[in-house]
């Protein structure tokens, strides 16, 4: 299992007693659409409170980076027939801001933290997967060449493009945006996190109700695609849970699990 050495988080809604943990803050993000997507801004905010070696191995789990469609609205407005894909499209598309594309790329969190903090180690970016947290853990445990591993989860799903669809699936949900960072190293003393004690994935898929929320988090907590594995660990830290197996669900009948053990 991986030894947790440090953590930090920047979140748009409070997560119970987790807000009493050091390095966990509430943030309000002012849209800076020409420069940086919210998911990147949250990750930079959270990571600024950790000391990370520049050769650390990095895994990012990225949810929606932020709103994107609005970049296309001015282009549609100039269409003679009111349709985006209507006449004179090639000419109208000249007005698409170059950053419009960059802001919809889903590897921008890994790129942003690499540039900001000079991280040049191996990097993997997993996207759109609440279950990815557990599926990534067993590969991280195999990273013997790199003693320090940084795991960053970041998501900006509380936007019009995403919010309503999420609510179709999870009707009672309140969404939270933000980033959660974990630094694992051989001398970490906060706790152990792993897919299982043996390093093998425990992800034996079980058919679940697609509308069923993962059962591991306290009732009433906000929902956050791609952040929930991190939220489970924050909850365990804040509550002093000695050991627990957490389950994550993708809403399509696939589940993964990981173990937490306090040190």
């Amino acid at each position, binding site marked *: 299992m991986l030894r947790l050495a440090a953590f930090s988080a920047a979140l748009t809604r409070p997560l119970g007693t987790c807000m009493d943990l050091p390095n966990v803050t509430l943030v309000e993000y002012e849209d800076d659409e020409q420069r940086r997507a919210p998911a990147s801004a949250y990750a930079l905010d959270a990571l600024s409170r950790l000391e990370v070696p520049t050769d650390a191995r990095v895994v990012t789990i*990225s949810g929606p980076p932020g709103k*994107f*469609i609005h970049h*296309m609205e001015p282009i*549609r407005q100039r269409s003679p027939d009111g349709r985006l*894909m209507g006449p004179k*499209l*090639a000419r109208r*598309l*000249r007005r*698409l*801001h*170059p950053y*419009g*594309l*960059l802001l*919809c*790329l*889903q*590897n921008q969190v*890994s*790129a942003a933290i*690499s*540039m900001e*903090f000079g*991280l*040049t*180690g*191996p*990097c*993997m*970016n*997993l*996207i*759109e*997967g609440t*279950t*990815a947290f557990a*599926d*990534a853990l067993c*590969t991280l*445990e*195999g990273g013997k060449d790199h003693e320090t591993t940084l795991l960053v989860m970041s998501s900006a799903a509380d936007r*019009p*493009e*995403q919010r*309503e*669809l*999420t609510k*179709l699936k999870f009707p009672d949900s309140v969404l939270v945006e933000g980033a959660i960072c974990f630094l694992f190293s051989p001398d970490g003393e906060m706790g152990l996190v792993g*897919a299982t004690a043996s*390093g*093998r*994935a425990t*992800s034996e*898929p079980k058919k679940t109700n697609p509308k069923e929320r993962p059962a591991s988090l306290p009732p009433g907590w906000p929902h956050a695609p791609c952040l929930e594995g991190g939220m489970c660990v924050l909850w365990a830290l804040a509550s002093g849970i000695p050991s627990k197996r957490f389950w994550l669900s*993708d*809403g399509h009948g*696939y589940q*993964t699990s990981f173990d937490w053990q306090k040190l």
Partner: protein
Amino acid sequence: MTSFAVPSHAIVAPGDLDYPDFVAGRSAVVRLPETFPVRVGAPLPEDVCPPHANAELIMPRGVALALEACDRLEYDPDAHYGLVLALPTLRAEPEFVERSLDAVGDPSGLIPVRSFFGEAPLAEVAEHLGVDGPRVRVDTACASGSDALIFAHQWLEAGAVEDVIVVASTAMLNPLGVAGFNNLGTLSRDDDLRASRPFDLARNGFVMGEGAAGMWLSSRSHTSAPGYLSGYGQSMNATHMTGVPEDIGVMLRACRSALARVPNPGKDLAYISAHGTATRANDAAEIRVYRELLGEDRAGVAISSLKSMIGHCLGASSLIEACVCLDILINGQATPTINLEVPEPNSGLDFVPNKAKEVSGDFVLSNAFGFGGHNSSLLFSRGQF
């Protein structure tokens, strides 16, 4: 690092070209309709994954191409697989954008495009393949295909699963996707079917393609496996979202990590698949990387860019190129870099200009250097190594 067998691989390449076409130097680059902001691109033929209307649920083209790659891949349907899907953003697909604009103020309009969101694309591909093991989706831009293979290798090494199917797909060859890259200044604006000119002095940007690929990676014994994934390396540039670093050390580090167990790369490598986008910055940096990597032996290693024939298939490109690397390892014919008329002077490198070349050796290296600074190198070997 353990070698893992590649029992099978398959590609869905622009023009529906395959290895024999590449050896023959055929190009998939054609003129694009006037709705596009540039003149040339490398699409799939219309009969491969034709769009089908379903008002109830629109399948993303990126997913449709991924499913096509799955259908072309031979695998044991009774085995227990994991799935790594390299599928970058689907948010630039026109159906999605148009319906999302329509849905402002009426979210029910998003229901037909719900398969673009969240875990739906990964679930769709997993269900199509019958995968019942672990599954993740990777996006490291143009390095996605390579990084998906690396993730699969790490799963196998950890013993999480014994077989993994890796699928990569990209479908941004539409007016919106092309405009995004064009407005960044990365595309060739030539009205010339030879516009994709990696390593040529007159190169001026990449030509966009679309496609997909699949590869089965296994830790079980496969005596007839044509090749093995035997090494990999990754690094980040930490410099610029779209640029390449002045200090090529980080790119070299990825290559050297992949080659760590190869005693003498300059003599043992049969071939290097370059990222070779035909942008001025990328190709110049790659030339420096290969000169440094191969040293005095640099003229003896065949290096070429498949993108000269099929354009840049973005997130799928490096898995398509990895598949062709295996074909080169099996058949001993390095595919050419076409449209290479005036090479960069004094590089001392063999870019296999315009005509395929016989090669020998037990190893091939496949490189990808993606937007965001993701550097990814793969080493394939003929035997277990």
